[in-house]
């Protein structure tokens, strides 16, 4: 057990090192220049060259990479070119909206998906099942940002229940900030629920026909105990995997949704950093996101062991 955990941890380090290298190289070979963007359209070539030197962008790529790696080892992701603050600070500031958006979307998604998925499987072929499958199919093909635009149009513009965008003005209370997450969380949650519903249904179908379920029934156990206790527990592993991956996807910033709703989260930070070629922020953010992905996967693997004692790595 301990050995397998250690093995996994080692694997994580390797993955992170690969991510750091690939991101660094891709960012540098992409055309575009932070200095040119910062100085504006009328800047001269000489001005741009001077600023590049000042930003440390004039060295060779391997040189810059070694410098960067040395910093990362010490937990220093560098200084954002545009925000004039450390990348870590920038990321921490954006963590709140992204974190709560993830939690709310996931809550909405699971609250919808689990009951619907279970019931669909249980009443396989029924009108409910067919309706649920069709709607899930439809929801899975709708981009969440588009759903978001519809929500803005209806709930914010027409009904005026919410602000159309942003995360509250100066001095906004926690409650006011959270209110800005309702629409994006709904949009993301609904779309994510489709995938989880389909997995729940498929996974439940697999186990509902198993012998032990029949045995449980023949013992005279109540139906809902059979379904929720015996069947669901065994069906949970693939469902958990999907929920975990959805969570990771959401943490990494529902990039487009955040941009549409003007949320100052990790996703929109990455987008704006890419557009203005803020290298340190792109690198730092992607490294942290990759780290979270790896971590979520690790946690899910560990959960498997808890749920299913047969699982051994």
């Amino acid at each position, binding site marked *: 057990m301990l050995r397998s955990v250690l093995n996994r941890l080692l694997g994580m380090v390797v993955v992170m090192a690969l991510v750091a290298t690939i991101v660094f190289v891709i960012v540098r070979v992409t055309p575009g220049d932070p200095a040119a963007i910062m100085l*504006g359209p009328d800047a001269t070539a000489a001005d741009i060259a001077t600023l590049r030197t000042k930003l440390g962008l004039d060295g060779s790529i391997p040189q810059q990479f070694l410098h960067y790696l040395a910093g990362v080892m010490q937990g220093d992701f560098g200084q954002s070119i545009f925000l004039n603050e450390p990348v870590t600070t920038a990321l921490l500031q954006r963590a709140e909206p992204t974190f709560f958006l993830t939690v709310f979307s996931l809550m909405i998604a699971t609250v919808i998906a689990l009951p619907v998925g279970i019931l669909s499987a249980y009443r396989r072929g029924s009108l409910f099942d067919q309706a649920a499958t069709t709607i899930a199919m439809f929801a899975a093909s709708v981009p969440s940002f588009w759903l978001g635009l519809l929500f803005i149009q209806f709930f914010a513009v027409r009904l005026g229940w919410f602000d159309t965008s942003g995360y509250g003005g100066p001095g906004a209370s926690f409650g006011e900030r959270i209110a800005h997450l309702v629409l994006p969380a709904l949009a993301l949650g609904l779309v994510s629920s489709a995938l989880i519903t389909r997995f729940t249904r498929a996974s439940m179908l697999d186990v509902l026909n198993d012998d032990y379920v029949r045995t449980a029934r023949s013992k005279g156990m109540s139906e809902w105990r059979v379904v929720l206790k015996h069947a669901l527990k065994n069906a949970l592993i693939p469902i958990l995997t999907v929920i975990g991956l959805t969570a990771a996807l959401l943490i990494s910033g529902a990039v487009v949704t955040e941009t549409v709703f003007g949320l100052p989260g990790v996703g929109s930070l990455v987008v704006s950093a890419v557009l203005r070629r803020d290298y340190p922020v792109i690198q730092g953010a992607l490294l942290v996101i990759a780290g979270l992905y790896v971590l979520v996967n690790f946690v899910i693997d560990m959960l498997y062991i808890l749920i299913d004692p047969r699982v051994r790595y």
Partner: protein
Amino acid sequence: MKRVLQVVASFAALLPALAWAEPQKGGVIDVATVGEPPTLDPMASTADLVGIITQHIYETLYTFDNKWGITPLLAADMPTISPDCLTYTIPLRTGIKFHDGSDMTSADVMASLKRWMKVATRGKQAADVISSLDALDERTVKITLKKPYAPLLSLLSLNNAAAIIIPSENADEDPLTKFIGTGPYMLKDRKPDQFIQLARFDGYRPRDGEPDGYGGARKQYLDEIRFVPVPDPNTRVEGAVAGQFAYADSLPVESYDKISGGKTKPLILKPFGWPVFVMNTKQGLNSDVRIRKAIQAALAPEDMLLAAFGSKDFYAVDGAMYPEGFAWHSDTGTEAYKPEGDTEKAAALLKDAGYDGKPLRILTSRQYEFHYKMAQVAKAYLEQAGFKVELDVVEWATLTKNRTDPALWDIYITHSPFLAEPSLNGFMSDNTPGWWSSDAKHKVLDAFNSETDPAKRAKLYEDVQKVIYDEAPVYKVGDFNALAAEAPNLKGVTPAPWPYFWNAYLEGK
């Protein structure tokens, strides 16, 4: 007695109306901007967004009045210019306070101008002709030039790469970290990608008189102005329609109908600027002026503008480099501008130039959808004339990088507001992408830049425009208007290329 009472009563009845007519202090507005500015140091950037926000915080010695003439701001008056046009003696206003409470003196002006000449793109341009900078006393500075240079005052007036005046103790900072100026509003708080909060500066002393463009008295009715970055144009539109933003900048023209009803209303700045095809005169196909002339003849601005802006409400087919209303307006040389294109002439010019079928590379992006639409129409017309055309559609940051390499493109597409001083347009410099440099250009531009009399300069500009049309270093497509949305109770906002919100007030406040 009764009559007296009646008279008093009728005056009293008038009072509410009077109070309503006079704008009242108070209120907070949210202004949706196109994004987060790269810096709050307007010396360090020529980006419009930086200028729009920071012009509320800092001020320059001079600025523009509502006819784009130069008018004093922190300077007490227009400069005394020596007869040889080489020395500018600038009197400063007294009793001006910075946001940190200190007084502005000539020492601050000297330190700021020196920083400007070192840091700012336009400052460096000025530094080339400035031989010395002196403080004559606490309230007077003197600028001495190496040669007569008329654009100087415009350079001192612009709000991007701006010659802002900051306290001398901050002038050594680069990048600037203390955002302290003399403007009517001061920086209160900033959360990147969330808001920039400006609050009324109580120590501000406006100029006497009435507001006049960017100049004159700057009134401080609003308590706070908050600039909210909303990069997605649709979200800006929805926010305006929902009444969340008192002002939403730079909206797509398609949204005109949508913002016309209810909680917001359209505000059109006419004309805002000009879309431009910049030709690479240094390398490749367009280093041959004959090819450039063929392009000039082939393009059909009427169709290009219609495709780009959809309705005549938003553009004008106009070859003059400055539209009517500007002192620089003239039609000299514009015969070469063909609203519907002249395919036959273009084909003939192309044949004379010995065009060998090498593809003409147009570098553009979809950051501004109208650039891309114009590129598509241009491609069709150029192909009709016999060109082979390649569209190189990249994202904006890539475009700004690639245009600096003359090996990569033949035309790139951009746009510009009508700058009050023609010689500040990018292509007037030999070093900006496009690299237009010719004897004819230098001759007319030198004459134009060394004349200080506005009337004579307007006449000399006709020669400049003629050379622009003769040598086609750029192709001006036409004039276009900008669309913004403002709340019906927001008053006092004058449409401007760099919108400003001093003088603005909320009705019924």
